[in-house]
């Protein structure tokens, strides 16, 4: 069972790469664009710190950790859950009909089988920068902090996965929410900064309702040693609840699916 799914994933990933290479110019353009965005933003943060030393109590190095953790979670989700971006089209063009009649989980096909190799190329500079920033962190943070950072980063990716599953469910249910995933992307924009900068209500929303804080700010805070154990437990529990709820929503949406006409 797992072996068959592994083979399906490999075959689909391989097909995605071939399809991307069929449009070299377009694909290359998007790659350059994404690198540009990363670079611009980093340059922006550095430029800001030419005029000030701290922001909401954080140093430039702290801000870099927040920004890079955001990119790590965000890009990993984009690489592996790319299929969601085509979810509405898969439903309206009828590809989803084929997913449903074949002996392979339709959620698996919809969400996880389009791999974006362009983003693999964009995550490399992020990893490199994380290496540079980590090297500048004060020595002796202890292995525990790094382990917690890794755990919470994966936890964040888990929450991202739940959100992607939820969006896939919406596409199946309504067949028209073309841009739901773009809302997620835009709201994710708020995660580029530590959530502490947001006003009271916004901060609570980002921690409890649309848990971008938990996804990207918490791992960074854990690394900087300013996340309490209670919030750590909350983060892990939230991920579990989100995954269960989104899966339930997905199953219900498929049950109500009305295949597009003709």
């Amino acid at each position, binding site marked *: 069972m797992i072996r068959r799914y592994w083979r399906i994933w490999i075959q689909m990933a391989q097909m995605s790469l071939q399809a991307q290479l069929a*449009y070299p*110019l*377009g694909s290359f353009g998007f790659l350059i664009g994404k690198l540009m965005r990363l670079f611009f933003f980093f340059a922006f943060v550095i430029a*800001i710190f030419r005029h000030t030393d701290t922001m909401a109590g954080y140093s430039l190095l702290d801000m870099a950790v927040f920004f890079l953790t955001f990119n790590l979670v965000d890009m990993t989700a984009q690489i592996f859950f790319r299929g969601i971006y085509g979810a509405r089209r898969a439903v309206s063009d009828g590809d989803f009909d084929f997913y449903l009649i074949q002996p392979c989980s339709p959620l698996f096909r919809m969400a996880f089988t389009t791999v974006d190799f362009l983003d693999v190329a964009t995550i490399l500079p992020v990893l490199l920068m994380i290496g540079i920033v980590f090297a500048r962190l004060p020595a002796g943070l202890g292995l525990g902090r790094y382990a917690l950072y890794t755990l919470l980063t994966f936890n964040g990716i888990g929450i991202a996965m739940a959100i992607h599953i939820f969006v896939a469910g919406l596409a199946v249910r309504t067949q028209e929410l073309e841009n739901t995933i773009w809302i997620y992307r835009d709201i994710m*924009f708020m995660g580029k900064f530590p959530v502490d900068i947001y006003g009271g209500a916004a901060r609570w929303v980002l921690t409890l309702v649309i848990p971008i804080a938990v996804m990207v700010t918490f791992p960074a805070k854990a690394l900087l040693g300013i996340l309490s154990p209670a919030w750590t437990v909350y983060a892990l529990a939230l991920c579990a609840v989100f995954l269960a709820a989104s899966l339930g929503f997905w199953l219900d949406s498929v049950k109500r699916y009305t295949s597009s006409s003709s």
Partner: protein
Amino acid sequence: MIRKYWTAYAISLQETLQRRSSLLMDRVGGVAIIVSLYYFWKALLGTKPSFLGYSGEQMLSYVLVMNILRSFVFTGRGWQLVGEISSGRISSYLVRPISYHGYTLALDLAQKTVHLAAAFLEVGVLIAAIGARVYLPHSLSTWLLFSVSVAVSSLLFFFMEFMVSSLAFWTSESGGPLFCFELGLQFAAGTFFPLDVLPHSLQKALAMTPFPYMVFFPINIYLERMAPAEAVKILGIQAVWLAFFVWAATAVWKLGLSNYSAEGG
């Protein structure tokens, strides 16, 4: 003559409203960006009375006015053009007695109408919700200069994007270049932050390009950070850029068309 474009406008307006969820999504995304930028600057300002020569009120107004400008300036029809060229649907327009530029401009205006209304609503709600204070220009001439410069920069964007999208005639997939173009443009125009943040040399270099004239300078006119004479000069430079891009977009379009028909679509 004008009537068919008016009809295109009206139909497109209906279409935009009909796809209400798309519209909603577009706007929610925009709100997320202004909220985060708003708080970013607020946090940065902290207790400082001013930053980079912007008063607190001016800086936060920059973000809010920017949201309205984004809705009005950065809504082109480039993606439609790219799609229609690569699918070959473009041919069906070419045989009709309608100018493609005029037609898409009518569609674009419809989109702008809806988005502008939504942007005003959002900024209004935001002001009410978080008690933001907005800088309002004191003199009538500022309002006038600002309106004209926004109208010009909106057209400037339309023709610029049109030119970049026309590359699809040669590559049949200029989605990538268009994506890069839009990203670079939004940064260089000052959509995410006032360009004053950048080092002086970079600011000077950018001033040689059309980009700062699309958002950064118009907002500066609005915030009355420049003398009226300087504002008029900005309008002049905008006009020169607009003339250039109307010419360039038309030229590239013509070249592209002849290339397209030579290869038989």
